């Protein structure tokens, strides 16, 4: 205690001496300047800082996010201030207006500062994307307005000319097909699949094992899985099992498919396990961690896909579950048919898996079905093999070296010399020069 009072006295003394020194010092002016700055800083530090407001004055509703829990409220205030400071430090943080209430609750539950930083970064990119989309939309609208004006100039066209115009809003051979019509078509296929199609189970029971973001991605993939399935020529009859309607995953899926729970909607959602619906000996769990490769597609089996996005932990959860329940297991023959590149893992999204299964059940050709595996994960094929594996991809996707008939080829005698001619042409490998010749000739 004595020590403290002494230091306070000394502090006072110091101030006095300081002032004297300032008067004496030659660069007193400079000194006061610096002193002023520092002084203002500390005053600023002690001023109220409204963390709940950002630079544009967007306010965050602290009370409704925390439900009046004082501890959470304190934490939220700190996090709000932290976001503001990060913004001021030039880190990627979106304005508060782009962080929704649910985002704040998620931020509150994140375990570390780094996790929050990553979340901010993600939200920042999202908000920039939105911004860019908006500007693009405005640009488009402006262009359309201009276009409209130009078109309006040509309003008094004679009826004959108008009828000859082949265009939207003019004369057309076809009726417009509405989205609802398409939907009805696709849904009718699904309804047919319910009676005649093969059953397929999607195990939605992993929501506890995934982080919020993974759950979010998983819900999106489930939506894509459903869409991919109903677009196919011969869809599966899909059963979502272990789907707890209270879980974040299913709630999110419901946001993507609002009519999910309607009675007429061709999707089976069960809260119970697949064990209660299907006979155990028919079930086959598809898990990448097991050893048995699925060599042939079994049309009597009920395959189970685990709806699992494992970005964070790669524990063999589906393997453990299948083992525990004593089910048969199988994995896709990814290594047998594909040459994997180093680096990116062998994980596939749910929609890719269903696309593969759909194709393989249709024609049993793994080479064909496995074209849904992203090409970036594979070692590049030589042109020929590549094109064979991807026979029904869009034409410009494949770097196929095509045989181009040259002007010098004796077309008339091709029928008996075919073998030797093609061989010699390939040997020469001057198709391109021939081709140039041809252009020259024609011009």
């Amino acid at each position, binding site marked *: 205690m004595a020590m403290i009072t002494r230091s306070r006295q000394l502090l006072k003394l110091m101030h006095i001496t300081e002032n004297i020194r300032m008067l004496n010092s030659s660069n007193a002016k400079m000194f006061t300047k610096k002193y002023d700055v520092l002084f203002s*800083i500390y005053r600023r530090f002690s001023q109220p800082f409204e963390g709940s407001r950002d630079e544009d004055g967007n306010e965050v509703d602290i009370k409704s996010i925390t439900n009046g829990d004082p501890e959470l409220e304190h934490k939220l205030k700190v996090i709000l201030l932290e976001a503001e400071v990060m913004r001021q430090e*030039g880190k990627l943080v979106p304005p508060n207006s782009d962080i929704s209430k649910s985002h704040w609750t998620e931020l509150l539950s994140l375990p570390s500062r780094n996790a929050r930083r990553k979340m901010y970064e993600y939200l920042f990119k999202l908000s920039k994307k939105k911004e860019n989309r908006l500007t693009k939309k405005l640009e488009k609208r402006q262009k359309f307005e201009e276009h409209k004006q130009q078109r309006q100039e040509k309003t008094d066209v004679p009826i004959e000319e108008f009828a000859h115009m082949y265009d939207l809003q003019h004369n057309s051979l076809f009726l417009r097909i509405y989205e609802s019509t398409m939907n009805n078509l696709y849904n009718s296929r699904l309804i047919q699949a319910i009676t005649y199609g093969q059953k397929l189970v999607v195990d939605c029971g992993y929501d506890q094992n995934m982080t919020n973001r993974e759950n979010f991605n998983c819900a999106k993939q489930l939506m894509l899985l459903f869409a991919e399935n109903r677009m196919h020529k011969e869809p599966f009859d899909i059963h979502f099992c272990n789907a707890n309607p209270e879980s974040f995953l299913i709630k999110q899926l419901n946001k993507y498919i609002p009519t999910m729970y309607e009675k007429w909607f061709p999707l089976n959602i069960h809260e119970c396990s697949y064990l209660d619906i299907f006979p155990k000996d028919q079930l086959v769990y598809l898990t990448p961690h097991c050893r048995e490769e699925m060599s042939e597609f079994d049309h009597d089996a009920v395959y189970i896909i685990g709806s699992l996005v494992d970005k964070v932990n790669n524990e063999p959860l589906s393997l453990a579950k299948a*083992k525990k329940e004593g089910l048969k297991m199988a994995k896709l023959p990814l290594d047998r048919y594909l040459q994997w590149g180093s680096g990116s893992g062998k994980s596939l999204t749910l929609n890719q898996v269903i696309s593969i299964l759909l194709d393989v059940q249709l024609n049993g050709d793994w080479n064909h079905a496995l074209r849904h595996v992203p090409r970036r994960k594979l070692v590049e094929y030589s042109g020929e093999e590549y094109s064979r594996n991807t026979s029904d991809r869009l034409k410009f996707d494949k770097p196929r070296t095509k045989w181009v008939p040259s002007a010098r080829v004796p077309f008339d005698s091709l029928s008996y010399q075919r073998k030797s001619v093609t061989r010699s042409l390939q040997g020469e490998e001057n198709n391109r020069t021939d081709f140039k010749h041809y252009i020259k000739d024609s011009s």
Partner: protein
Amino acid sequence: MLGKCIYSTISKKCVSLSFIQQRGLIRPRKTREYFDVVRAVMDNSTVKSLNDWKNVRNSILEHSYNSGKYTKNNIDALIINYCANKKDCDLGTSYLNFLKKENIEPNLATIGKYLKLLYTINADMVFKEGKKLPVIEEELILRYKSGSAENIRSHGLVHFNRYYEDLRRDYPVLDSYSLENAILALSVTSKWRTCLDLLKDIEATATPNNLCYSSSIAAAFINKEEELGWAMLEEMLQCERIPNSYAFHGYLSRLRRHRSKRLIIEKLEMLFLFLQKYDMKCPEDVIKNIADLADGLKLLNIFTTVSFKGICQNCQSRMTNFELTPNEFAELKGAVLENVIVGKNVFSKTDPDELERFKKFVTNMGTFDVVLDGLNVAYSAGTKNSPVVHSGLVAAVVSHFVENRRRVLVLGRKHMNKWPKQNWGYVNENATVFLTQNISQDDPYLLYCALQSGQNTVIVTRDLMRSHRFLLESPNLKKNFNRWLNQRQWQLVRVDEQRGPIFRKPPPFTVTTQKANGLWHIPYEQNKVNEKDQYIDTWLCLKTTQFT
């Protein structure tokens, strides 16, 4: 037909061209995103008067590469941050003066960065050289002697402390970034004690970073609070934060102020024991500081190397091997079973039946000299060889040990039973074999068997077991696991036709700070990055017992 061909080829070319053009457009944009405009502008401009700042500020904001990343909201903090990285206080101060002149209130981040700037220019002086003047008397004396910027800074910080108290009373909420910067600035002043409270505040939302902890620890040491400093070091390690060199510099500068040589040596040995206890690697600048201190005390110290066999090239003494105590060993074994084999879900690595079978096996297995990771050895030449090669490799390694009259245990999976009879039969006859199911993991069992078999058992695998170490969770267990594995793991390099299997064996001693033959030996890392976790052969050999 031909016409169609041409058309398709040309359109294909067009597609690829436009594609390349697109790519070409995207690339510079990407580099622009990561381009540090502040640094580029600041490096190329000199600030002589406050008005120059206006130009600098504008040229950053209006830079062609600035696509919205630099705004009026964050530019101040970024400029001050640049000054902090350059350790240029006058530059930073003049910028704040400029802001004042322009009537721009510096925001919280700017203040934080300025505090960090004040810290960076003082930290070396305070912690390393121990010159600092946290005691007010000393500060007063210095003020009379010279009127440079140094005084103003410390003057400012004193004010900060006073205002800080008001701040805490009025606004209990501060974010972790500002708190960290405040801790750094406070740690070099006499009010360093507030750092402790601030560290607690940070813990509400984040874990304090290495620098904060280290600076607070250094401050504690310098201000004669050694016990507190040590306690904080332990606390920091529990949070898996690694102290940086300032913490040690602080301790050493404190030692320099002791008068008694005996006391200094005693305390120095405390530091060595700490390094030894936590297997801490000493940074190069700290080891130089230690050598310097030893020079001052006229203690014999020489930078030397210790051979792989553990002989100091300077004093020829032999390094010792630190065995785990039976208690630590038992604890490690328990943790491997609990965390690694069973974990959250027994089924993810094995299943209950198999675990029971394993437990029964373990109770009757006795001790082995060698525990072999069968599949790791088999696949050491690549997985794409024939089963003959796989089984041949295992058989060769087993025969090597059997000829030396060692008892061998081989762990593997059941599919190994399908290997060619000749080689696999030899392994089965000459070694004990435990096979897990094909879908179970054999590594955790391998670890447990090796631990169960006793302290002297050698474990043969090339796997560094990092994923299993991670599952142990507690830092202390991880350290013990590392120590054990580093002593006992042999890695198969290749199988030579004439010489048989060749192993990479660990050094016969523990690479950590230790006293050998009455001399202290401290390994240190040179500043280059030790990527492959190679053997460290740079040591300091220090004699502390010269005068007793």
